[in-house]
């Protein structure tokens, strides 16, 4: 009996590892809890309770889903919308809501015809947070008929990000008051 059990004990996990795509981890709340079977009564099953230490990923996910719940977006909807709004004065070259990237085409401000700008923005996650968006501006100036790369002051990028965040805050408070 014992060698058989040992063989089974070794063989079964190996067998289980062969399931491949038909395989998944069984969640903790799929097992019974016989000291009264109380786990089933918990509002969120195995993710029940109050987080007293650490980051509550489930809650973040829930809130992000509730806040930015637009289907098809894998980034925070407020940040995404705010970035689009903020960069809307420039022509849009590409926008990928799954990767969270927005890339504009070259844009020349009305008052300064010898310089042009281009922007790349990244919305970085599902959470509405201050480091959730990154904007990078590129500037070129016209020198002797040639567009030449020239530096952008670091504060310009930060200013753009602040504008996006301010707009996101606006959108958030608008939807909250609805």
């Amino acid at each position, binding site marked *: 009996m014992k060698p058989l*059990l040992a063989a*089974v*004990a070794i063989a*079964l*996990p190996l067998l*289980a*590892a*062969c*399931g*491949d*795509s*038909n*395989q*998944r*981890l*069984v969640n*903790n709340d799929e*097992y*019974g*809890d*016989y*000291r*009264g*079977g*109380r*786990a*089933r*009564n*918990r*509002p969120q099953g*195995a*993710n*029940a*309770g*109050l*987080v*007293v*230490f*650490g*980051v*509550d*990923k489930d809650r973040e996910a829930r809130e992000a889903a509730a806040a930015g719940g637009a289907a098809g977006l894998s980034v925070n909807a407020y940040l995404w919308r705010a970035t689009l709004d903020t960069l809307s004065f420039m022509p849009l070259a590409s926008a990928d809501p799954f990767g969270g990237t927005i890339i504009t085409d070259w844009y020349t401000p009305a008052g300064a015809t010898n310089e042009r700008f281009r922007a790349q923005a990244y919305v*970085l*996650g599902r959470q509405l947070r201050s*480091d959730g968006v*990154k904007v990078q501006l590129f500037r070129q100036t016209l020198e002797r008929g040639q567009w030449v790369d020239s530096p952008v002051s670091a504060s310009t990028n930060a200013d753009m990000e602040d504008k996006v965040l301010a707009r996101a805050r606006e959108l958030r408070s608008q939807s909250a008051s609805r």
Partner: protein
Amino acid sequence: MRKILLGTTAVVGAALLAPSFAAAQEAPTVRIGGFFRAYYGYTQQTGRNSTAPGATGSTLPTGVAGATGNLPPDAPGGNQARLSKNDFSTDGEVHVFVNGKTANGLSYGAVIEMAFNQQEGRNIVQQRSSTGKTTASIDEWYAFVASPTWGQVRFGDEDGPVGGLMNSGVITNFGTGGVYGDRESFVTRQANDRTTTSPGSLGDATKIIYLSPQFFGFDFGASFAFNYNEGEDTGCSTNQSSGYCDSSYAFTGASGVGIAAAGPNFSARRNEYQGAARWRGSLAGVGLSVTGGYVGAGAARELTPVAGTQARVFNNLNVYQVGAQATAYGLTVGAQYEHGDSNFFWGNTFRGDRPMDQFFAGASYTAGPFTFGGNYVMQTVEGASRSAFSGPAADAGSKSGLVASTAAPGSAGFGAGLMRRLGYGIGGNYRIAPGMDIVAEYSSYTVAERGRDLNPSNPGTQDKATAKVFILGTRIAF
């Protein structure tokens, strides 16, 4: 940004280590959860009264000396004090959950469930030297590591795959659980009129558990425990091998604890192993779950105090279990059958005793916030054992040391044999809010064994005992 970088690094790491499962590292969280419940109970139970030992032949069961010491000896037709039928009962647990995930996709954590019902009976040892019923204790605690590739390992005091984790057909999701519910909070132990051969009653002995991932609808689990005990320390009160020692494989008095003694995890069970396989899936919109399982265990040997002979008085615990349930449109029906060498309370039987048969059936229906249901259990086991351990017989060469009982029906030690245990419960609950229910339930449980006095503290031969409990109350899980 740093978080993002960490996250992407983790994804790369996961991609290298476990190609099919990319996951980001998660710092551990600590959660507090648990439950609290408060019930009113109305109990009708045979023999829930005290009569003094004396003229009419009633005797006190062992271990309860003093329980009826406040009564004078029996007088004809008098001197009975009944227990009240009405009572409130509260219980709660605080659970701590630790959960984290490593960069390569392993989930890990621990569960610590603090209970506050250590003592079933109040035991005044001396003046100012006693513990209350609500003394804190541990229900379950274990650590786990889980991977989508190879499953989960739990290590600690926890139910096994057969003992609660993976059963099918045990329908208890209504009221307080019907016949396996909280009724025992209101029932006294007289005549063992309780329903404790539920899956979870197999015990939370410290064990190591393997639970496989699910593949093609199947998952399976196995567990092993060296003995019946939980927690740290040896349990030994001295150097002597005694039943209190977690790991003693032979001790004097083992023959008395084939069925575990209440309270101190005092049992003869040793080397318990469980294995279960489960299939879950759906056919034509009907959710199905089927489980087959086995639990086996050895038993400590009885040690004679005179010659030190070790006698194998017990059969191994040896129980097969099959169960199935189906769910559709809120209706769940299920049944479970168990057969093998075991007594009630999952006790080890004496050698030569009959095996246990147990059949359970239940159904429940959920509609919106309401759930109703009923369940039924029927068990036959060896009752008063047909034999008793005799030290001299073991010393004289008998391997089991068991001597057939010759006592007359109705007298102490009479081995009538077949004990029937029947119970049913019906109940319902209404969900006030997520996690909070109002529950109502009625359950009845009967123990019968022809010719055997199940209740020696009452006069005459009481060969049938019934307890009926009505519960109304509330509970919240958080």
